[in-house]
Protein backbone atom coordinates (compact mmCIF):
# COMPACT_ATOMS: atom_id res chain seq x y z
CA UNK A 1 0.00 0.00 0.00
CA UNK A 2 2.87 2.33 0.86
CA UNK A 3 4.19 2.08 -2.67
CA UNK A 4 0.80 3.05 -4.13
CA UNK A 5 0.75 6.21 -2.08
CA UNK A 6 4.21 7.12 -3.28
CA UNK A 7 3.11 6.53 -6.84
CA UNK A 8 0.20 8.85 -6.42
CA UNK A 9 2.30 11.57 -4.89
CA UNK A 10 4.78 11.25 -7.72
CA UNK A 11 1.94 11.47 -10.20
CA UNK A 12 0.63 14.64 -8.62
CA UNK A 13 4.04 16.20 -8.51
CA UNK A 14 4.56 15.34 -12.14
CA UNK A 15 1.15 16.79 -12.94
CA UNK A 16 2.13 20.10 -11.42
CA UNK A 17 5.37 20.06 -13.33
CA UNK A 18 3.36 19.62 -16.51
CA UNK A 19 1.15 22.61 -15.74
CA UNK A 20 4.27 24.72 -15.41
CA UNK A 21 5.73 23.41 -18.62
CA UNK A 22 2.55 24.18 -20.49
CA UNK A 23 2.49 27.63 -18.97
CA UNK A 24 5.96 28.36 -20.25
CA UNK A 25 5.80 26.73 -23.59
CA UNK A 26 2.36 27.44 -24.96
CA UNK A 27 -0.33 30.06 -24.65
CA UNK A 28 -1.05 30.33 -20.95
CA UNK A 29 -4.85 30.73 -21.29
CA UNK A 30 -5.95 27.41 -22.79
CA UNK A 31 -2.92 25.33 -23.58
CA UNK A 32 -5.08 23.62 -26.22
CA UNK A 33 -3.98 25.21 -29.47
CA UNK A 34 -0.35 25.07 -30.35
CA UNK A 35 1.28 27.30 -32.92
CA UNK A 36 3.48 25.69 -35.55
CA UNK A 37 6.95 25.15 -34.25
CA UNK A 38 5.67 24.28 -30.82
CA UNK A 39 8.16 21.42 -30.77
CA UNK A 40 11.04 23.79 -30.44
CA UNK A 41 9.22 25.92 -27.89
CA UNK A 42 8.38 22.91 -25.81
CA UNK A 43 11.91 21.65 -26.06
CA UNK A 44 13.08 24.96 -24.72
CA UNK A 45 10.59 24.65 -21.89
CA UNK A 46 12.39 21.70 -20.36
CA UNK A 47 11.97 17.95 -20.01
CA UNK A 48 8.77 16.34 -21.24
CA UNK A 49 6.53 15.85 -18.24
CA UNK A 50 3.59 13.72 -17.33
CA UNK A 51 0.41 15.59 -16.72
CA UNK A 52 -3.32 15.81 -16.83
CA UNK A 53 -5.91 18.43 -16.28
CA UNK A 54 -9.25 17.92 -14.54
CA UNK A 55 -11.26 19.34 -17.45
CA UNK A 56 -9.65 16.90 -19.88
CA UNK A 57 -10.28 14.10 -17.50
CA UNK A 58 -14.01 14.78 -17.29
CA UNK A 59 -14.15 15.06 -21.08
CA UNK A 60 -12.44 11.74 -21.43
CA UNK A 61 -14.62 9.85 -19.01
CA UNK A 62 -17.75 11.23 -20.70
CA UNK A 63 -16.44 10.24 -24.13
CA UNK A 64 -15.51 6.82 -22.90
CA UNK A 65 -18.88 6.24 -21.26
CA UNK A 66 -20.55 7.23 -24.55
CA UNK A 67 -18.39 4.83 -26.58
CA UNK A 68 -19.00 2.01 -24.13
CA UNK A 69 -22.75 2.58 -24.25
CA UNK A 70 -22.79 2.74 -28.05
CA UNK A 71 -20.80 -0.45 -28.44
CA UNK A 72 -22.53 -2.54 -25.82
CA UNK A 73 -25.74 -4.26 -26.74
CA UNK A 74 -28.12 -4.81 -23.87
CA UNK A 75 -29.66 -8.28 -23.88
CA UNK A 76 -32.83 -9.07 -22.00
CA UNK A 77 -33.97 -12.50 -20.88
CA UNK A 78 -36.02 -14.46 -23.40
CA UNK A 79 -39.64 -14.61 -22.18
CA UNK A 80 -40.95 -17.98 -21.03
CA UNK A 81 -43.64 -18.33 -23.70
CA UNK A 82 -41.00 -17.81 -26.35
CA UNK A 83 -38.80 -20.58 -24.97
CA UNK A 84 -41.91 -22.78 -24.91
CA UNK A 85 -42.72 -21.91 -28.50
CA UNK A 86 -39.21 -22.35 -29.92
CA UNK A 87 -37.81 -25.17 -27.79
CA UNK A 88 -40.70 -27.34 -26.59
CA UNK A 89 -43.40 -27.15 -29.25
CA UNK A 90 -41.33 -28.33 -32.28
CA UNK A 91 -40.12 -31.67 -30.82
CA UNK A 92 -43.58 -32.35 -29.39
CA UNK A 93 -45.19 -31.77 -32.78
CA UNK A 94 -42.65 -34.11 -34.38
CA UNK A 95 -43.57 -36.81 -31.81
CA UNK A 96 -47.28 -36.29 -32.49
CA UNK A 97 -46.73 -36.60 -36.26
CA UNK A 98 -44.87 -39.89 -35.76
CA UNK A 99 -47.69 -41.23 -33.56
CA UNK A 100 -50.34 -40.21 -36.08
CA UNK A 101 -48.51 -41.78 -39.04
CA UNK A 102 -47.93 -44.92 -36.96
CA UNK A 103 -51.62 -45.14 -36.03
CA UNK A 104 -52.71 -44.57 -39.65
CA UNK A 105 -50.36 -47.34 -40.79
CA UNK A 106 -51.83 -49.71 -38.23
CA UNK A 107 -55.45 -48.78 -39.06
CA UNK A 108 -54.80 -49.16 -42.79
CA UNK A 109 -53.59 -52.69 -42.08
CA UNK A 110 -50.14 -52.22 -43.63
CA UNK A 111 -48.97 -55.20 -41.62
CA UNK A 112 -50.61 -57.56 -39.15
CA UNK A 113 -50.58 -56.81 -35.41
CA UNK A 114 -47.87 -59.37 -34.63
CA UNK A 115 -45.41 -57.37 -36.70
CA UNK A 116 -46.70 -53.82 -36.24
CA UNK A 117 -48.40 -53.29 -32.89
CA UNK A 118 -50.61 -50.23 -32.43
CA UNK A 119 -49.44 -47.33 -30.27
CA UNK A 120 -52.20 -48.34 -27.91
CA UNK A 121 -50.78 -51.85 -27.51
CA UNK A 122 -47.34 -50.43 -26.71
CA UNK A 123 -48.91 -48.09 -24.18
CA UNK A 124 -50.69 -51.13 -22.67
CA UNK A 125 -47.36 -52.94 -22.35
CA UNK A 126 -45.90 -49.90 -20.60
CA UNK A 127 -48.86 -49.83 -18.19
CA UNK A 128 -48.38 -53.58 -17.55
CA UNK A 129 -44.74 -53.09 -16.65
CA UNK A 130 -45.69 -50.18 -14.41
CA UNK A 131 -48.29 -52.32 -12.62
CA UNK A 132 -45.88 -55.23 -12.37
CA UNK A 133 -43.49 -52.79 -10.68
CA UNK A 134 -40.37 -53.71 -12.67
CA UNK A 135 -40.37 -50.77 -15.13
CA UNK A 136 -38.02 -48.65 -13.06
CA UNK A 137 -35.80 -51.52 -12.00
CA UNK A 138 -35.29 -52.40 -15.69
CA UNK A 139 -34.43 -48.81 -16.59
CA UNK A 140 -32.26 -48.27 -13.52
CA UNK A 141 -30.24 -51.46 -14.07
CA UNK A 142 -29.08 -50.07 -17.41
CA UNK A 143 -28.81 -46.41 -16.45
CA UNK A 144 -26.76 -47.17 -13.35
CA UNK A 145 -24.41 -49.37 -15.34
CA UNK A 146 -24.17 -46.76 -18.09
CA UNK A 147 -23.44 -43.87 -15.75
CA UNK A 148 -20.92 -45.80 -13.61
CA UNK A 149 -19.17 -46.99 -16.74
CA UNK A 150 -19.16 -43.47 -18.08
CA UNK A 151 -17.65 -42.08 -14.87
CA UNK A 152 -14.91 -44.73 -15.06
CA UNK A 153 -14.33 -43.78 -18.72
CA UNK A 154 -14.07 -40.15 -17.63
CA UNK A 155 -11.48 -41.01 -14.99
CA UNK A 156 -9.39 -42.93 -17.54
CA UNK A 157 -10.00 -40.86 -20.66
CA UNK A 158 -9.14 -37.47 -19.17
CA UNK A 159 -5.55 -38.15 -18.06
CA UNK A 160 -5.04 -40.25 -21.18
CA UNK A 161 -6.15 -37.33 -23.37
CA UNK A 162 -3.90 -34.92 -21.48
CA UNK A 163 -0.86 -37.15 -21.94
CA UNK A 164 -1.60 -37.80 -25.63
CA UNK A 165 -2.07 -34.09 -26.27
CA UNK A 166 1.07 -32.92 -24.47
CA UNK A 167 3.63 -35.71 -24.89
CA UNK A 168 4.78 -35.96 -28.47
CA UNK A 169 6.02 -39.54 -28.27
CA UNK A 170 2.78 -40.79 -26.72
CA UNK A 171 0.75 -38.92 -29.32
CA UNK A 172 2.68 -40.52 -32.17
CA UNK A 173 2.33 -43.93 -30.54
CA UNK A 174 -1.23 -43.90 -29.22
CA UNK A 175 -3.00 -41.14 -31.18
CA UNK A 176 -3.81 -43.16 -34.32
CA UNK A 177 -4.97 -46.11 -32.21
CA UNK A 178 -7.36 -43.87 -30.27
CA UNK A 179 -8.81 -42.48 -33.48
CA UNK A 180 -9.10 -45.97 -34.92
CA UNK A 181 -10.83 -47.28 -31.80
CA UNK A 182 -13.42 -44.55 -32.22
CA UNK A 183 -14.51 -45.96 -35.55
CA UNK A 184 -14.54 -49.57 -34.29
CA UNK A 185 -18.05 -50.33 -33.00
CA UNK A 186 -17.35 -51.37 -29.44
CA UNK A 187 -19.95 -54.13 -29.71
CA UNK A 188 -17.20 -55.95 -31.59
CA UNK A 189 -15.47 -56.30 -28.23
CA UNK A 190 -18.38 -58.16 -26.62
CA UNK A 191 -17.27 -61.71 -27.57
CA UNK A 192 -13.72 -61.03 -26.38
CA UNK A 193 -14.90 -59.34 -23.19
CA UNK A 194 -17.22 -62.24 -22.39
CA UNK A 195 -14.48 -64.80 -22.89
CA UNK A 196 -11.93 -62.84 -20.85
CA UNK A 197 -14.14 -61.57 -18.08
CA UNK A 198 -17.10 -63.97 -18.05
CA UNK A 199 -20.76 -63.10 -18.52
CA UNK A 200 -21.00 -60.62 -15.71
CA UNK A 201 -20.86 -56.92 -14.89
CA UNK A 202 -17.13 -56.65 -15.58
CA UNK A 203 -17.64 -57.52 -19.25
CA UNK A 204 -20.35 -54.87 -19.55
CA UNK A 205 -18.09 -52.21 -18.07
CA UNK A 206 -15.19 -53.24 -20.28
CA UNK A 207 -17.35 -52.72 -23.35
CA UNK A 208 -18.55 -49.32 -22.11
CA UNK A 209 -14.98 -48.22 -21.44
CA UNK A 210 -13.79 -49.30 -24.87
CA UNK A 211 -16.61 -47.27 -26.37
CA UNK A 212 -16.31 -44.10 -24.31
CA UNK A 213 -12.62 -43.71 -23.41
CA UNK A 214 -11.43 -42.98 -26.98
CA UNK A 215 -14.17 -40.38 -27.47
CA UNK A 216 -13.38 -38.59 -24.23
CA UNK A 217 -9.62 -38.69 -24.78
CA UNK A 218 -9.94 -37.56 -28.40
CA UNK A 219 -12.29 -34.76 -27.41
CA UNK A 220 -9.75 -33.47 -24.91
CA UNK A 221 -6.92 -33.77 -27.45
CA UNK A 222 -8.96 -31.84 -30.02
CA UNK A 223 -9.85 -29.23 -27.42
CA UNK A 224 -6.22 -28.76 -26.40
CA UNK A 225 -5.05 -28.61 -30.03
CA UNK A 226 -7.46 -25.77 -30.66
CA UNK A 227 -6.34 -23.64 -27.72
CA UNK A 228 -5.02 -20.38 -29.22
CA UNK A 229 -1.26 -20.12 -28.50
CA UNK A 230 -1.94 -16.52 -27.46
CA UNK A 231 -3.69 -17.75 -24.29
CA UNK A 232 -0.67 -19.83 -23.35
CA UNK A 233 1.69 -16.91 -23.93
CA UNK A 234 -0.56 -14.58 -21.96
CA UNK A 235 -0.71 -17.17 -19.19
CA UNK A 236 3.07 -17.51 -19.14
CA UNK A 237 3.43 -13.75 -18.91
CA UNK A 238 1.03 -13.73 -15.96
CA UNK A 239 3.25 -16.30 -14.28
CA UNK A 240 1.40 -19.53 -15.05
CA UNK A 241 3.90 -22.26 -15.87
CA UNK A 242 3.80 -26.05 -15.70
CA UNK A 243 0.87 -27.43 -13.73
CA UNK A 244 -0.47 -23.96 -12.96
CA UNK A 245 -0.59 -23.23 -16.67
CA UNK A 246 -2.44 -26.52 -17.29
CA UNK A 247 -4.94 -25.83 -14.52
CA UNK A 248 -5.58 -22.11 -15.06
CA UNK A 249 -5.18 -21.82 -18.81
CA UNK A 250 -4.89 -25.03 -20.84
CA UNK A 251 -7.76 -27.05 -19.36
CA UNK A 252 -10.35 -24.25 -19.19
CA UNK A 253 -9.40 -23.17 -22.71
CA UNK A 254 -9.85 -26.76 -23.93
CA UNK A 255 -13.21 -27.19 -22.21
CA UNK A 256 -15.47 -26.78 -25.29
CA UNK A 257 -13.73 -29.65 -27.12
CA UNK A 258 -13.65 -31.71 -23.95
CA UNK A 259 -17.39 -31.31 -23.34
CA UNK A 260 -18.12 -32.25 -26.97
CA UNK A 261 -16.03 -35.38 -26.33
CA UNK A 262 -17.99 -36.15 -23.14
CA UNK A 263 -21.26 -35.86 -25.00
CA UNK A 264 -20.11 -38.23 -27.71
CA UNK A 265 -18.58 -40.48 -25.07
CA UNK A 266 -21.94 -40.84 -23.35
CA UNK A 267 -23.68 -41.67 -26.65
CA UNK A 268 -21.04 -44.34 -27.33
CA UNK A 269 -21.26 -45.82 -23.83
CA UNK A 270 -25.01 -46.08 -24.00
CA UNK A 271 -24.95 -47.73 -27.42
CA UNK A 272 -22.22 -50.17 -26.42
CA UNK A 273 -24.02 -51.08 -23.23
CA UNK A 274 -27.30 -51.81 -25.01
CA UNK A 275 -25.50 -53.97 -27.57
CA UNK A 276 -23.67 -55.84 -24.81
CA UNK A 277 -26.89 -56.44 -22.86
CA UNK A 278 -28.60 -57.75 -25.97
CA UNK A 279 -25.83 -60.23 -26.69
CA UNK A 280 -24.74 -61.36 -23.24
CA UNK A 281 -27.33 -63.27 -21.26
CA UNK A 282 -26.88 -64.40 -17.69
CA UNK A 283 -29.01 -64.37 -14.55
CA UNK A 284 -26.09 -62.60 -12.80
CA UNK A 285 -26.55 -59.57 -15.04
CA UNK A 286 -30.11 -58.82 -14.00
CA UNK A 287 -32.62 -57.44 -16.48
CA UNK A 288 -31.66 -54.16 -18.05
CA UNK A 289 -33.22 -52.51 -21.08
CA UNK A 290 -31.19 -54.50 -23.58
CA UNK A 291 -32.00 -57.79 -21.88
CA UNK A 292 -35.68 -56.84 -21.63
CA UNK A 293 -35.72 -56.15 -25.38
CA UNK A 294 -34.12 -59.53 -26.12
CA UNK A 295 -36.57 -61.30 -23.78
CA UNK A 296 -39.49 -59.74 -25.60
CA UNK A 297 -38.05 -60.85 -28.95
CA UNK A 298 -37.72 -64.41 -27.66
CA UNK A 299 -41.38 -64.23 -26.55
CA UNK A 300 -42.33 -62.74 -29.97
CA UNK A 301 -44.04 -59.92 -28.10
CA UNK A 302 -43.91 -57.13 -30.65
CA UNK A 303 -45.44 -54.50 -28.36
CA UNK A 304 -42.74 -55.29 -25.79
CA UNK A 305 -40.01 -55.03 -28.45
CA UNK A 306 -41.31 -51.60 -29.47
CA UNK A 307 -41.48 -50.52 -25.84
CA UNK A 308 -37.88 -51.66 -25.33
CA UNK A 309 -36.65 -49.69 -28.35
CA UNK A 310 -38.58 -46.60 -27.28
CA UNK A 311 -37.27 -46.75 -23.72
CA UNK A 312 -33.65 -47.06 -24.88
CA UNK A 313 -34.18 -44.04 -27.13
CA UNK A 314 -35.93 -42.01 -24.44
CA UNK A 315 -33.28 -42.73 -21.78
CA UNK A 316 -30.47 -41.84 -24.19
CA UNK A 317 -32.15 -38.54 -25.09
CA UNK A 318 -33.07 -37.77 -21.47
CA UNK A 319 -29.53 -38.16 -20.12
CA UNK A 320 -28.21 -36.02 -22.94
CA UNK A 321 -30.84 -33.35 -22.33
CA UNK A 322 -30.51 -33.38 -18.55
CA UNK A 323 -26.72 -33.58 -18.26
CA UNK A 324 -24.70 -33.00 -21.40
CA UNK A 325 -26.61 -30.48 -23.48
CA UNK A 326 -27.02 -27.98 -20.61
CA UNK A 327 -23.32 -28.42 -19.79
CA UNK A 328 -22.33 -27.78 -23.38
CA UNK A 329 -24.69 -24.82 -23.71
CA UNK A 330 -23.33 -23.28 -20.53
CA UNK A 331 -19.71 -23.70 -21.63
CA UNK A 332 -20.32 -22.22 -25.07
CA UNK A 333 -22.65 -19.45 -23.99
CA UNK A 334 -20.41 -18.18 -21.21
CA UNK A 335 -17.67 -17.70 -23.83
CA UNK A 336 -19.93 -16.09 -26.40
CA UNK A 337 -19.46 -19.06 -28.76
CA UNK A 338 -23.12 -19.64 -29.61
CA UNK A 339 -25.24 -17.63 -32.01
CA UNK A 340 -27.78 -17.09 -29.24
CA UNK A 341 -25.24 -15.60 -26.86
CA UNK A 342 -24.83 -12.21 -28.50
Amino acid at each position, binding site marked *: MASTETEQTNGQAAGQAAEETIGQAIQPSTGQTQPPGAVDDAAAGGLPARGKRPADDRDLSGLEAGL*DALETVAVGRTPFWRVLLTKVVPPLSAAVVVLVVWQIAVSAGVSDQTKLPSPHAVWGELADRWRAGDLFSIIWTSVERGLLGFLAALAIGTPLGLVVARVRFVRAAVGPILTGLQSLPSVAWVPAAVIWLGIEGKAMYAVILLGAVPSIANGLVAGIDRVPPLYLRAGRNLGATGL*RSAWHVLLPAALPGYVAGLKQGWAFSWRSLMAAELIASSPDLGVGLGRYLENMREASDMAGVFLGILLILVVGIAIDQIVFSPLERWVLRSRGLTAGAQ
Partner: protein
Amino acid sequence: MADTLTGPAPAAVPETAHAARLDHVSKVFGRPGTQPPVLDGITLDVEPGEFVCLLGASGCGKSTLLNLVAGLDEPTAGTIDTPGGRPALMFQEHALFPWLTAGRNIELALRLRGLPREQRRPEAERLLSLVRLGGAYGKRVHELSGGMRQRVALARALAQDSQLLLMDEPFAALDAITRDVLHDELSRIWAETNLSVLFVTHNVREAVRLAQRVVLLSSRPGRIQREWRVDIPQPRRIEDAAVADLSVEITEELRGEIRRHGQH
Protein backbone atom coordinates in the same frame (compact mmCIF):
# COMPACT_ATOMS: atom_id res chain seq x y z
CA MET B 1 19.90 -9.54 14.86
CA ALA B 2 16.52 -9.81 16.56
CA ASP B 3 15.73 -6.30 15.47
CA THR B 4 16.41 -7.00 11.85
CA LEU B 5 14.24 -10.09 12.00
CA THR B 6 11.21 -8.42 13.51
CA GLY B 7 11.65 -5.01 11.92
CA PRO B 8 9.73 -3.84 8.88
CA ALA B 9 10.72 -5.37 5.56
CA PRO B 10 12.90 -3.19 3.34
CA ALA B 11 11.34 -1.62 0.26
CA ALA B 12 10.69 -4.40 -2.23
CA VAL B 13 11.88 -2.54 -5.30
CA PRO B 14 15.48 -1.39 -5.24
CA GLU B 15 16.35 1.89 -6.92
CA THR B 16 17.82 1.12 -10.30
CA ALA B 17 19.14 3.30 -13.07
CA HIS B 18 17.04 1.58 -15.70
CA ALA B 19 13.75 -0.28 -16.04
CA ALA B 20 15.12 -2.37 -18.88
CA ARG B 21 18.61 -2.60 -20.33
CA LEU B 22 19.24 -4.30 -23.65
CA ASP B 23 22.89 -4.83 -24.43
CA HIS B 24 23.84 -5.82 -27.99
CA VAL B 25 20.82 -8.06 -28.33
CA SER B 26 20.62 -10.19 -31.48
CA LYS B 27 18.12 -12.80 -32.50
CA VAL B 28 18.40 -15.41 -35.22
CA PHE B 29 15.64 -17.92 -35.81
CA GLY B 30 16.75 -21.38 -36.80
CA ARG B 31 20.39 -22.41 -36.75
CA PRO B 32 22.82 -19.46 -36.67
CA GLY B 33 24.31 -18.82 -40.08
CA THR B 34 21.43 -20.33 -42.04
CA GLN B 35 19.05 -17.37 -41.63
CA PRO B 36 19.69 -13.63 -41.59
CA PRO B 37 19.31 -12.16 -38.10
CA VAL B 38 15.94 -10.66 -37.22
CA LEU B 39 17.50 -8.35 -34.66
CA ASP B 40 21.08 -7.20 -34.78
CA GLY B 41 22.96 -5.52 -31.96
CA ILE B 42 20.11 -3.72 -30.25
CA THR B 43 21.34 -1.61 -27.34
CA LEU B 44 18.62 0.29 -25.55
CA ASP B 45 17.91 1.57 -22.05
CA VAL B 46 14.44 2.31 -20.77
CA GLU B 47 14.69 4.60 -17.76
CA PRO B 48 12.42 4.17 -14.75
CA GLY B 49 9.15 5.93 -15.49
CA GLU B 50 10.04 6.49 -19.12
CA PHE B 51 7.65 6.00 -22.05
CA VAL B 52 9.50 4.66 -25.10
CA CYS B 53 7.91 3.83 -28.44
CA LEU B 54 9.60 1.34 -30.76
CA LEU B 55 8.68 2.20 -34.31
CA GLY B 56 9.29 0.24 -37.44
CA ALA B 57 7.88 -1.19 -40.66
CA SER B 58 6.66 -4.75 -40.95
CA GLY B 59 9.36 -7.35 -40.48
CA CYS B 60 11.67 -5.17 -38.40
CA GLY B 61 11.40 -7.55 -35.45
CA LYS B 62 9.53 -5.19 -33.11
CA SER B 63 7.36 -7.95 -31.70
CA THR B 64 10.30 -10.32 -31.51
CA LEU B 65 12.17 -7.74 -29.46
CA LEU B 66 9.23 -7.35 -27.11
CA ASN B 67 8.96 -11.12 -26.68
CA LEU B 68 12.64 -11.19 -25.75
CA VAL B 69 12.19 -8.47 -23.13
CA ALA B 70 9.10 -10.28 -21.82
CA GLY B 71 11.17 -13.44 -21.42
CA LEU B 72 8.92 -15.44 -23.75
CA ASP B 73 11.93 -16.07 -25.98
CA GLU B 74 15.73 -16.11 -25.57
CA PRO B 75 18.12 -13.81 -27.44
CA THR B 76 20.75 -15.48 -29.62
CA ALA B 77 23.37 -13.04 -28.36
CA GLY B 78 23.52 -10.15 -25.93
CA THR B 79 21.83 -9.64 -22.59
CA ILE B 80 18.53 -8.25 -21.39
CA ASP B 81 18.16 -7.00 -17.86
CA THR B 82 14.80 -6.11 -16.31
CA PRO B 83 15.54 -5.38 -12.64
CA GLY B 84 11.85 -4.87 -11.76
CA GLY B 85 11.07 -8.54 -12.31
CA ARG B 86 9.02 -10.10 -15.09
CA PRO B 87 7.53 -7.29 -17.21
CA ALA B 88 3.81 -7.18 -17.91
CA LEU B 89 2.87 -7.69 -21.55
CA MET B 90 -0.15 -6.47 -23.51
CA PHE B 91 -0.91 -7.91 -26.94
CA GLN B 92 -2.64 -6.60 -30.04
CA GLU B 93 -5.48 -9.03 -29.32
CA HIS B 94 -6.81 -8.54 -25.81
CA ALA B 95 -5.77 -12.10 -24.81
CA LEU B 96 -8.30 -12.09 -21.99
CA PHE B 97 -9.53 -15.53 -21.02
CA PRO B 98 -13.11 -15.92 -22.31
CA TRP B 99 -14.05 -18.45 -19.62
CA LEU B 100 -13.55 -15.84 -16.92
CA THR B 101 -15.37 -12.58 -16.27
CA ALA B 102 -13.49 -9.29 -16.60
CA GLY B 103 -12.96 -9.17 -12.83
CA ARG B 104 -11.85 -12.80 -12.63
CA ASN B 105 -9.31 -12.25 -15.38
CA ILE B 106 -7.69 -9.60 -13.23
CA GLU B 107 -7.97 -11.75 -10.12
CA LEU B 108 -6.16 -14.58 -11.88
CA ALA B 109 -3.23 -12.22 -12.52
CA LEU B 110 -3.33 -11.17 -8.84
CA ARG B 111 -3.47 -14.80 -7.74
CA LEU B 112 -0.53 -15.80 -9.91
CA ARG B 113 1.33 -12.82 -8.50
CA GLY B 114 0.71 -14.30 -5.03
CA LEU B 115 -1.76 -11.82 -3.60
CA PRO B 116 -3.80 -13.38 -0.73
CA ARG B 117 -7.34 -14.38 -1.59
CA GLU B 118 -9.15 -11.76 0.50
CA GLN B 119 -7.27 -8.88 -1.13
CA ARG B 120 -7.94 -9.96 -4.70
CA ARG B 121 -11.50 -8.80 -5.13
CA PRO B 122 -10.99 -5.24 -3.80
CA GLU B 123 -7.76 -4.90 -5.79
CA ALA B 124 -9.49 -6.07 -8.98
CA GLU B 125 -12.29 -3.56 -8.39
CA ARG B 126 -9.72 -0.81 -7.85
CA LEU B 127 -7.91 -1.65 -11.09
CA LEU B 128 -11.17 -1.77 -13.03
CA SER B 129 -12.14 1.67 -11.79
CA LEU B 130 -8.64 2.88 -12.70
CA VAL B 131 -9.45 2.05 -16.33
CA ARG B 132 -12.95 3.43 -15.73
CA LEU B 133 -14.77 0.14 -15.98
CA GLY B 134 -16.06 0.09 -12.42
CA GLY B 135 -19.28 -1.71 -13.37
CA ALA B 136 -17.69 -4.37 -15.55
CA TYR B 137 -16.51 -6.81 -12.87
CA GLY B 138 -19.07 -9.50 -13.68
CA LYS B 139 -19.09 -8.96 -17.45
CA ARG B 140 -17.97 -11.74 -19.76
CA VAL B 141 -15.28 -10.86 -22.27
CA HIS B 142 -17.61 -11.29 -25.23
CA GLU B 143 -20.04 -8.81 -23.71
CA LEU B 144 -17.44 -6.03 -23.85
CA SER B 145 -16.59 -3.83 -26.83
CA GLY B 146 -13.12 -3.85 -28.37
CA GLY B 147 -12.04 -0.76 -26.47
CA MET B 148 -13.38 -2.07 -23.18
CA ARG B 149 -11.55 -5.37 -23.69
CA GLN B 150 -8.26 -3.57 -24.18
CA ARG B 151 -8.91 -1.55 -21.03
CA VAL B 152 -9.55 -4.73 -19.06
CA ALA B 153 -6.38 -6.16 -20.60
CA LEU B 154 -4.55 -3.03 -19.43
CA ALA B 155 -5.99 -3.48 -15.95
CA ARG B 156 -4.84 -7.11 -15.97
CA ALA B 157 -1.36 -6.04 -17.03
CA LEU B 158 -1.31 -3.48 -14.21
CA ALA B 159 -2.41 -6.24 -11.82
CA GLN B 160 0.96 -7.89 -12.36
CA ASP B 161 2.43 -4.98 -10.43
CA SER B 162 5.45 -4.90 -12.68
CA GLN B 163 7.65 -1.82 -13.04
CA LEU B 164 7.75 -2.27 -16.80
CA LEU B 165 4.78 -2.53 -19.13
CA LEU B 166 5.39 -3.92 -22.62
CA MET B 167 2.73 -3.15 -25.22
CA ASP B 168 2.68 -4.88 -28.60
CA GLU B 169 0.53 -2.72 -30.90
CA PRO B 170 -2.29 -2.90 -28.37
CA PHE B 171 -4.59 -0.45 -30.17
CA ALA B 172 -3.91 -1.47 -33.77
CA ALA B 173 -7.19 -3.35 -34.15
CA LEU B 174 -9.38 -0.55 -32.78
CA ASP B 175 -11.29 2.11 -34.68
CA ALA B 176 -9.79 5.61 -34.76
CA ILE B 177 -12.08 7.20 -32.16
CA THR B 178 -11.66 4.40 -29.66
CA ARG B 179 -7.92 4.36 -30.23
CA ASP B 180 -7.78 8.09 -29.58
CA VAL B 181 -9.66 7.68 -26.30
CA LEU B 182 -7.37 4.85 -25.26
CA HIS B 183 -4.32 7.00 -25.98
CA ASP B 184 -5.69 9.57 -23.54
CA GLU B 185 -6.44 6.82 -21.06
CA LEU B 186 -2.99 5.30 -21.31
CA SER B 187 -1.31 8.71 -20.92
CA ARG B 188 -3.45 9.41 -17.87
CA ILE B 189 -2.70 6.08 -16.22
CA TRP B 190 0.99 6.39 -17.02
CA ALA B 191 0.92 9.83 -15.37
CA GLU B 192 -0.77 8.42 -12.28
CA THR B 193 1.63 5.51 -11.81
CA ASN B 194 5.37 4.89 -11.78
CA LEU B 195 5.26 2.71 -14.84
CA SER B 196 7.91 2.50 -17.49
CA VAL B 197 6.37 1.67 -20.84
CA LEU B 198 7.94 0.09 -23.92
CA PHE B 199 5.34 0.46 -26.63
CA VAL B 200 5.67 -1.14 -30.08
CA THR B 201 3.80 0.32 -33.03
CA HIS B 202 4.01 0.91 -36.76
CA ASN B 203 1.86 4.05 -36.43
CA VAL B 204 4.13 7.11 -36.39
CA ARG B 205 1.51 9.51 -35.03
CA GLU B 206 0.63 7.10 -32.26
CA ALA B 207 4.28 6.93 -31.29
CA VAL B 208 4.65 10.71 -31.23
CA ARG B 209 1.33 11.10 -29.42
CA LEU B 210 2.42 8.82 -26.58
CA ALA B 211 6.15 8.64 -26.19
CA GLN B 212 8.88 10.64 -24.52
CA ARG B 213 11.31 8.91 -26.83
CA VAL B 214 10.70 7.34 -30.24
CA VAL B 215 13.15 4.70 -31.41
CA LEU B 216 13.09 3.84 -35.11
CA LEU B 217 14.12 0.31 -36.05
CA SER B 218 15.39 -0.60 -39.49
CA SER B 219 14.14 -3.78 -41.12
CA ARG B 220 16.02 -7.00 -41.91
CA PRO B 221 18.03 -6.95 -39.83
CA GLY B 222 16.35 -4.93 -37.11
CA ARG B 223 18.79 -2.30 -35.91
CA ILE B 224 18.27 0.95 -34.11
CA GLN B 225 18.34 3.51 -36.87
CA ARG B 226 17.53 6.76 -35.12
CA GLU B 227 16.02 8.17 -31.95
CA TRP B 228 13.88 11.22 -31.27
CA ARG B 229 13.22 12.82 -27.94
CA VAL B 230 9.60 14.03 -27.98
CA ASP B 231 9.46 17.18 -25.91
CA ILE B 232 5.88 18.11 -26.69
CA PRO B 233 4.18 18.48 -23.29
CA GLN B 234 1.34 16.19 -22.26
CA PRO B 235 -1.59 16.18 -22.64
CA ARG B 236 -1.09 15.88 -26.36
CA ARG B 237 -3.65 15.26 -29.03
CA ILE B 238 -2.98 13.19 -32.10
CA GLU B 239 -4.11 16.13 -34.28
CA ASP B 240 -1.78 18.68 -32.59
CA ALA B 241 0.40 20.58 -35.02
CA ALA B 242 3.52 19.71 -33.07
CA VAL B 243 2.65 16.02 -33.16
CA ALA B 244 1.97 16.28 -36.89
CA ASP B 245 5.27 18.08 -37.59
CA LEU B 246 7.43 15.57 -35.84
CA SER B 247 5.40 12.73 -37.38
CA VAL B 248 6.17 14.06 -40.86
CA GLU B 249 9.87 14.09 -40.07
CA ILE B 250 9.87 10.56 -38.69
CA THR B 251 7.68 9.26 -41.52
CA GLU B 252 10.17 10.61 -44.08
CA GLU B 253 12.96 8.68 -42.37
CA LEU B 254 10.80 5.54 -42.17
CA ARG B 255 9.90 5.78 -45.86
CA GLY B 256 13.52 6.17 -46.82
CA GLU B 257 14.31 3.04 -44.83
CA ILE B 258 11.51 1.08 -46.52
CA ARG B 259 12.54 2.33 -49.98
CA ARG B 260 16.05 1.03 -49.40
CA HIS B 261 14.71 -2.56 -49.42
CA GLY B 262 13.27 -2.19 -52.91
CA GLN B 263 16.52 -1.04 -54.47
CA HIS B 264 18.29 -4.38 -54.69
